[in-house]
């Protein structure tokens, strides 16, 4: 089993670097973070215990060093997104609204964000209690229950674009309109009709644009009134004048849209969602004792919820503040004495992301439902700090240090031990 594990590590290293060099541009910063994959978390070798949900990649692999049984060991994990693997669209015609901005229904969101992960490591003899040492294998799933909202710049761009599209349509009609009173009269009527159609379409697609009905109504009705006032009250009586008026408005909005697009594209993660998100995850760990197939034993099953909030501080750059929490329940294999009872975890995490850097601190408290008579405490905790640095679009370096949970209820009163972890996350495909 050890040989198979080593071979897997070597193969993954070779296998990764070839496609990585061949097709550089891949996922964004967040989708490269594999550290908190349920597979790693259930094996308890994760450098991050809480992570903000993000858009899943088709496939992502990671190799991470961690201290297991007092020695530094490499651990391997990968995560796949069935939705993105099955619906491999022609990316040359990806549409922003439907593929990125649209908020989908509850079940569709789950389907689109569901990922399956697998991780392996040498089994930690404290974490896995009385199970014999061997290889630990973690399997996990996670999906988003509540999605975030699109960011302010995208909202502003969407509104400008909507107005521009409408006015361009009007301008296109004016260019061919006969210059007589009857035609202008008909044009006014048509414009009113079009404005209504335009409003109805805008209200219908609120999810694309990130607006509430009231916000959209307030933004459009004021603007519409201004346009109608300019056109009607200012008594522009010839198509030439109308053409000039709409030409100037189109030009003004065109500049606005151009500068918003420049600002959006200059950001490191322009489509990053903001606001509240809620993710569900579950994992199951097994240990192949003595690295033998026949030695496989189920160790634990874990379920957790991760609520998170995001605020973007910067108007020009990417400075994101994330506040996250976790509520987790772990069912231990009591029959094989992984531990005498189950665990309940609650914790918080704060994270700041600025361009290529991301730093975080997290605290999680764990309560055991029962402890051995010799153990005085019913709880343990984890306090960790970490730094991520995005080396390239496909490579992120991770460093974290702190104290982890005491492995099982027998050790809750032992002195806390420090851990230091470092590793690379490597993206394979889009």
């Amino acid at each position, binding site marked *: 089993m050890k040989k198979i594990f080593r071979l897997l590590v070597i193969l993954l290293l070779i296998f990764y670097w070839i496609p990585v060099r061949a097709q550089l*541009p*891949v*996922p*964004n910063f967040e989708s490269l973070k594999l550290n908190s994959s349920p597979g790693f978390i259930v094996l308890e070798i994760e450098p991050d215990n809480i992570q903000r949900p993000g858009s899943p990649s088709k496939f992502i692999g990671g190799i991470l060093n961690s201290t297991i049984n007092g020695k530094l060991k490499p651990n391997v994990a990968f995560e796949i997104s069935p939705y993105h693997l099955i619906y491999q669209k022609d*990316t*040359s*015609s*990806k*549409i*922003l*609204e*439907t*593929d*990125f901005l649209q908020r989908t229904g509850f079940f569709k969101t789950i389907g689109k964000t569901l990922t399956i992960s697998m991780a392996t490591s040498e089994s930690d003899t404290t974490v896995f209690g009385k199970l014999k040492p061997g290889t630990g294998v973690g399997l996990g799933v996670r999906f988003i229950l509540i999605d975030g909202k699109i960011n302010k710049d995208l909202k502003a*761009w969407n509104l400008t*674009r909507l107005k*521009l*599209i409408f006015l*361009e*349509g009007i*301008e*296109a*009609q004016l*260019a*061919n*309109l006969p210059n007589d009173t009857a035609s202008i009269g*008909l044009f006014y009527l*048509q414009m009113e009709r*079009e404005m209504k*159609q335009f409003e109805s*379409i805008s209200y219908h697609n609120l999810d694309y644009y990130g607006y509430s009905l009231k916000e959209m109504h307030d933004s459009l009705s004021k603007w519409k009134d201004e346009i109608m006032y300019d056109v009607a009250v200012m008594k522009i009586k010839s198509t030439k004048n109308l053409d000039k008026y709409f030409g100037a408005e189109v030009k003004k909005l*065109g500049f606005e*849209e*151009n500068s918003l*697009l*420049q600002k*959006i*594209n*200059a*950001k*490191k*993660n*322009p*489509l990053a969602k903001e606001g509240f998100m809620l993710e569900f995850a579950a994992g199951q760990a097994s240990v192949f004792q003595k690295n033998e197939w026949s030695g496989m034993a189920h160790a634990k099953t874990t379920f957790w919820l991760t609520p998170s909030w995001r605020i973007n501080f910067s108007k020009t750059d*990417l400075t994101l503040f994330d506040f996250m929490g976790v509520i987790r329940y772990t069912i231990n294999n009591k029959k094989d004495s992984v531990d005498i009872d189950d665990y309940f975890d609650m914790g918080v995490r704060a994270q700041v992301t600025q361009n290529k850097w991301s730093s975080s601190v997290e605290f999680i408290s764990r309560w055991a439902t029962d402890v051995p008579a010799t153990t005085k405490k019913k709880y343990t905790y984890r306090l960790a700090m970490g730094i991520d640095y995005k080396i390239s*679009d496909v490579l992120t370096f991770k460093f974290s240090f702190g104290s982890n949970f005491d492995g099982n209820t027998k050790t809750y009163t032992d002195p806390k031990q420090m851990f230091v972890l470092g590793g690379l996350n490597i993206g394979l495909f*889009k």
Partner: protein
Amino acid sequence: MANQNPIYLDEPPVETEFIIPKKYNKTMISLTLGIQIKENDWVYASAHSIYLDFQNCYPQKTPEPVDLILNYGSMLENQLLSMISHVSRIKPSGGASPAQKVNYLLSITAGDKLIDSFEKESGTDNPSDFKSLIKFKLLE
């Protein structure tokens, strides 16, 4: 005589005649627009204003119309088709300037037979407007 490309990029369009062969005078004529972005890491948002003789025949504006019914060939004689396609591009992984180019495709079909199709490449300006002003003519 081959039809001329009626697509203009970011400038007012010049009226361009589009010949519909007379054999299609009783066939339904339809319009299809397409956009292809040149590099995989970019995505686009597009909207299309389409007016046939000042009547808005595509109020929903998005996505690109496929086989949008215009009218029977004979009914289109001397009618004016005015179109603007507005295409904006965003790079989801960010940190990019200038914008990636897109290819714009316009095709007109009679039933399931293609009469003609045209294409135009954008520049790196973002957004880009593809404009056309087509006058239909029915000829042998």
